[in-house]
Structure formats: structure tokens, C-alpha cells
């Protein structure tokens, strides 16, 4: 029997609290695969953020620090400076990274902090019940944009990868999507590359993963993937924005 696919041991997926079909799980798996493939289980230190992924430490079997909302890049900086040879990564949602924590991510990137950031952009605040995120699309209905996001007043979605790519300290920035099997395969490559960037001490690496939130989007998991592809990608084009 040849194994075609088996989850890596470092992924503890049995008791995940995520809603059915939520691609947070897929993203976790890609992180776990990258760590396993780099053989870095023993030196990986994750920094979880506040959002639906707040329990990430329960699902990835490596050292973890749970950061305050938005501050994961600062926490990771503290960790990485103390253990420069550890594989330090943050896992953050779009509310966490692009709203309350935008200063921390920009400065970690500007410093060229040698860490890896996994950025889950699902265009919504999942954990708190579907409020508008900075990445919410124009017209998208959320619990705090009941009539759909109206740019007059609520502004426009922020493209974080494009911003981070302007910074000299950023070594690798890519945006990928989790909406079908091929896109997940490409996302996996991006995640691995972002970890390799750190291993090679090239500086700050971030992968933005467009992700679904079936629950708060009010869609089935399958429809959510279609919506992601049809509506999110035009606003958040996929691709490599920086590579040194």
C-alpha cells in the first residue's frame, strides 16, 4: 500500500471546533504539512491570534504562544529574538492582522523580522459573529453593515499583501486561495515557501490565504468556495507580490 495522502502527525485535527467546511482547517493542515516537510516539529513555535483560530495551539502539536488580538507579530518578534533558530510563525485572521493589528504587521515586515505569517483573509470577523472586517467587500452584508458595506462611511477593503510588498524588509509575500483542489495545492507551495524563506534567513514572509466562512457568509461550504473564487479574487488578486 502506498500512501497517497495522510495528514502529518503534527496536525491534531480530531477535535477542531471550526464550523463544517471552514477552510481554517485546510490552512492548519497546510501549515502542519510545511512544518512536517521541513522536519521542524521540534523547533517550531506558533503564535496564535484572537479570532476563530484562537485554539490553534490545540490543533498543531508544537510550542505555541497565544497573542492578544492583533499583536501576534509583536509577540512573534519577542519569541524570535530570543530563539533565532526556532521556526516562528503567526497565524492571524483579517480582523486581527488588517484591522487592530495593522501597525504590528507593517512594522514586523519593515524590520524584516525573520518570521512567517499565515494570514487568513475570510472577509469577515468570524469568531465574534460576522461583523464587517477591513477586508469585507463593497456591498457585502455583515452584522455591522446590514445594508451591505457602503464605501461612503465604511470605506474600502484593504489589500494587505500589496501594502506589505512595498516594504524593504519583506522578503516573500504571496496571496493564494483555498477554493478548490488545485488552488489548495498552490497555497500549499506558498505556505512552504514562506517557511523556507525563514529557514534561509531571508527576512519577513507572509502568505495571505483567501479563506471561507460558510457560517457568517450564510452559505454552504461548497457555495462559499464558489463565492470566494467569484467575488473575493477580483478584489484580492492572487499572486506573488514580493520575492527576494
Amino acid at each position, binding site marked *: *500500500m*502506498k*500512501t*497517497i*495522502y*495522510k*495528514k502529518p502527525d503534527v*496536525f491534531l*485535527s*480530531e477535535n*477542531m471546533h*471550526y*464550523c*463544517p*467546511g*471552514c*477552510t*481554517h*482547517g*485546510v490552512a492548519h*493542515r497546510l501549515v502542519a504539512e510545511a512544518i512536517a516537510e521541513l522536519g521542524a516539529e521540534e523547533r517550531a513555535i506558533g503564535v496564535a491570534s484572537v479570532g476563530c483560530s484562537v485554539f490553534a495551539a490545540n490543533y498543531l502539536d508544537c510550542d505555541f504562544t497565544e497573542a492578544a488580538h492583533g499583536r501576534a507579530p509583536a509577540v512573534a518578534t519577542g519569541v524570535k529574538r530570543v530563539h533565532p533558530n526556532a521556526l516562528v510563525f503567526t497565524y492571524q485572521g483579517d480582523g486581527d492582522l488588517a484591522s487592530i493589528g495593522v501597525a504590528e504587521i507593517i512594522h514586523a515586515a519593515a524590520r524584516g523580522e525573520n518570521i512567517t505569517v499565515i494570514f487568513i483573509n475570510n472577509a469577515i470577523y468570524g469568531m465574534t459573529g460576522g461583523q464587517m472586517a477591513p477586508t469585507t467587500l463593497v456591498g457585502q452584508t455583515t452584522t455591522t453593515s446590514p445594508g451591505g458595506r457602503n464605501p461612503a462611511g465604511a470605506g474600502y477593503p484593504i489589500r494587505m499583501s500589496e501594502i506589505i510588498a512595498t516594504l524593504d524588509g519583506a522578503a516573500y509575500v504571496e496571496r493564494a486561495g483555498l477554493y*478548490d*483542489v488545485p488552488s*489548495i*495545492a498552490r497555497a500549499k507551495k506558498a505556505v512552504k515557501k514562506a517557511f523556507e524563506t525563514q529557514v534561509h534567513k531571508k527576512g519577513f514572509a507572509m502568505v495571505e490565504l483567501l479563506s471561507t466562512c*460558510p457560517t457568517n457568509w450564510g452559505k*454552504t*461550504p*461548497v457555495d462559499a*468556495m464558489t463565492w470566494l473564487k467569484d467575488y473575493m479574487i477580483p478584489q484580492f488578486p492572487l499572486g506573488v507580490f514580493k520575492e527576494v
Partner: protein
Amino acid sequence: MSYVEILTDVCKGCGLCVSVCPAGIMVLSPDAINARGYAPVTITAMENCIGCASCARVCPDAVLSVYKEVLT
């Protein structure tokens, strides 16, 4: 021949694997309910599985493992 292992009690019945299976052999149990209250996925005709692992690669909960018999 290929074989898909299912951790039935971990499955949340989201249907993502069903939607991507090229062989069309996956289906959410119409009657069974697992320990967590979900209708888990089952495979109707394992012999038609082509071992592409699409299902496993899309599953958010790592419910699925895929193996292929290798002729040595």
C-alpha cells in the same frame, strides 16, 4: 486499487469532499449521525476510487487518508 480511510467521527459532513471527488463516489450519509451530530461522508463504490486524494486535500478536518495498492 485505491483505498480511502474515513475517520467517521471526525467528519463534519460539510460536503466539500463530495463536491470535488472526480469519481462521484462520495456521499453524505442520508441516515447515520456521528458522535458530534453530523451526517458523515461515506464512499459508495470504493472500487471506483482513482486515488487522486482530492477529497483528502480539500477536507478541512483531515478526516480522510488515501492509499493505493502498489504492485511490486
